[in-house]
């Protein structure tokens, strides 16, 4: 059983964490392998906070490299806990303005032609905590932990809509989840037909319960809330339902006294993940400033890095290239002279959009925008090498 599974890994865990460590591992036979390739005891990234029923838990970006977010470390956002779902009784129903409503089992969803793509998923609330109440002891996890990047596999929604014969008048689709929040969002038909997926695999294996097992909606580049987890039905409609999540929530008050509704697309953004709190630079000299950049409007075109608080900017390299609608790793080799420094990153996307400064963001969106916190982030490097969040 699963609890027994924990016991099974105990010998390997103990071997890797033995004290003292063997002075020369080439002289003593190593530990036997286990049924899972567990982490080193010296590398134990975790989501935080824990115990979330209504709230969120964040990806530890300061511990990560490359572009992928390990499934165990994908951020979670829950409104009434994680449902216990038996995949053999799960189903997804498409109905409404369709020729023939149909209910599909999970096995049937997997029998349709599939697509595999690497896409980011970001909650619109990402960055809100750091914007509203910035503190020097905030890590990238705390600042921007509500974005993750995953290789998703699933069936195109367009394939399912074709299966049920969506009618021309159907310009919206209501997506509903099968958890205790029964979350609903109205999705424009155009997006559903363009690149929306019902995904059942996350980084090569089944979705995690905390991320929507056994199937969720995935709208590439669009806000996480719309990517309904534990998806149980899609209803084709002629108008949006105006659910709570698209009215009370996920609408963006503006300084002009309006609230922007249906702000679906995640705007271009970046954040330095190293060096960042709580890292300490060990010495002067060359250090790689690294981070992630992304945009819901296509592909990141380039990323600039500043080490003098935004006075001068330098273009970063992209060690993994740039893929559409996916976290893009950037890197800038910086020769630190040992004096205080202020590190910033600024992403641009192919539409010409550029990540705004904090001042510009505040001017355009106000002090309390509610969502879509995309302003440039800064990190302060002190002379002793300690790094803190600069807001």
């Amino acid at each position: 059983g699963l609890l027994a599974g924990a016991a099974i890994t105990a010998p390997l865990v103990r071997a890797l964490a033995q004290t003292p460590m063997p002075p020369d591992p080439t002289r003593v036979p190593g530990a036997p392998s286990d049924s899972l390739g567990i982490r080193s005891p010296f590398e134990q990234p975790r989501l935080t906070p824990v115990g979330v029923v209504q709230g969120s838990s964040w990806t530890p970006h300061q511990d990560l490299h490359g572009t992928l977010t390990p499934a165990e470390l994908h951020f979670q956002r829950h409104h009434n806990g994680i449902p216990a779902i038996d995949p053999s009784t799960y189903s997804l129903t498409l109905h409404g303005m369709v020729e023939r409503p149909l209910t599909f089992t999970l096995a049937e969803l997997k029998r349709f032609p599939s697509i595999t793509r690497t896409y980011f998923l970001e909650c619109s609330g990402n960055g809100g905590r750091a914007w509203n109440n910035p503190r020097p002891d905030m890590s990238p996890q705390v600042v921007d932990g509500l974005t993750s990047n995953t290789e998703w596999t699933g069936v195109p929604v367009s394939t399912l809509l074709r299966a049920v014969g969506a009618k021309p008048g159907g310009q919206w689709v209501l997506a509903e989840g099968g958890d205790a929040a029964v979350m609903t969002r109205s999705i424009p038909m155009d997006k559903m037909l363009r690149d929306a997926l019902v995904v059942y695999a996350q980084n090569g294996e089944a979705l995690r319960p905390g991320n929507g097992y056994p199937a969720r909606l995935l709208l590439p580049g669009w806000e996480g809330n719309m990517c309904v987890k534990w998806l149980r039905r899609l209803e084709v409609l002629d108008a949006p339902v105006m659910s709570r999540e698209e009215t009370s929530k996920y609408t963006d008050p503006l300084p002009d006294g309006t609230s922007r509704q249906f702000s679906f697309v995640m705007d271009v953004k970046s954040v330095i993940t190293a060096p960042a709190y709580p890292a300490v630079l060990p010495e002067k000299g060359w250090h790689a400033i690294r981070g992630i950049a992304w945009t819901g409007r296509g592909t990141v075109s380039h990323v600039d890095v500043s080490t003098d608080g935004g006075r001068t900017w330098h273009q970063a390299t992209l060690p993994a290239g740039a893929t559409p609608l996916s976290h893009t790793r950037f890197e800038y080799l910086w020769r630190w002279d040992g004096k205080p420094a202020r590190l910033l990153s600024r992403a641009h996307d192919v539409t010409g959009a550029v990540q705004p400064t904090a001042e510009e963001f505040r001017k355009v969106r106000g002090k309390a925008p509610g969502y879509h916190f995309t302003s440039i982030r800064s990190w302060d490097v002190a002379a002793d090498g300690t790094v803190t969040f600069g807001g």
Partner: protein
Amino acid sequence: CSTPSDRADPTYGLGKTPNVAQLAAMDRDVDPRGRGLPAGEGTVSQGAVVYAAQCASCHGARGEGRAPSPALVGRTPAAGHVFALDNKAPRTIGNYWPYATTVFDYVQRAMPQSTPGTLTAAETYSVVAYLLNENGIIAPDAVMNAQTLPAVVMPAARFFVRDNRTGGRLFR
């Protein structure tokens, strides 16, 4: 041999006609036109009873909220829609929600948080009536049902504008 172009049947022979009762149990969404509202009705005073019994423990006796349960009642700012300028201005049903039907839709599916989806139609109409009255939107003697609820005009509805941005250099 079968090739993609031969696949005349877009269902791939997959899926079953939905079970009528199961679908009806799910298909309870309510839109601003009132589509989906069930039969039944409720009054403000009936709603006060429901609220006191099933909601106040989390949302406060007067709907003022008690973290983490949000405030449900409030009409400040009295004028304008200045939430972008003030972190502390709570968004409530009265000063923010653009549609009254949303209150029904949401409460019906998600509240009480500990026993979601257990209110009857009458209880839901009632507590919605109560909340709308507490927020100064309907009269104390109003009756909420499938006809009257969609007709309620919410004070903040006129402030909502749909996003029309398409990227580009200008940050909006």
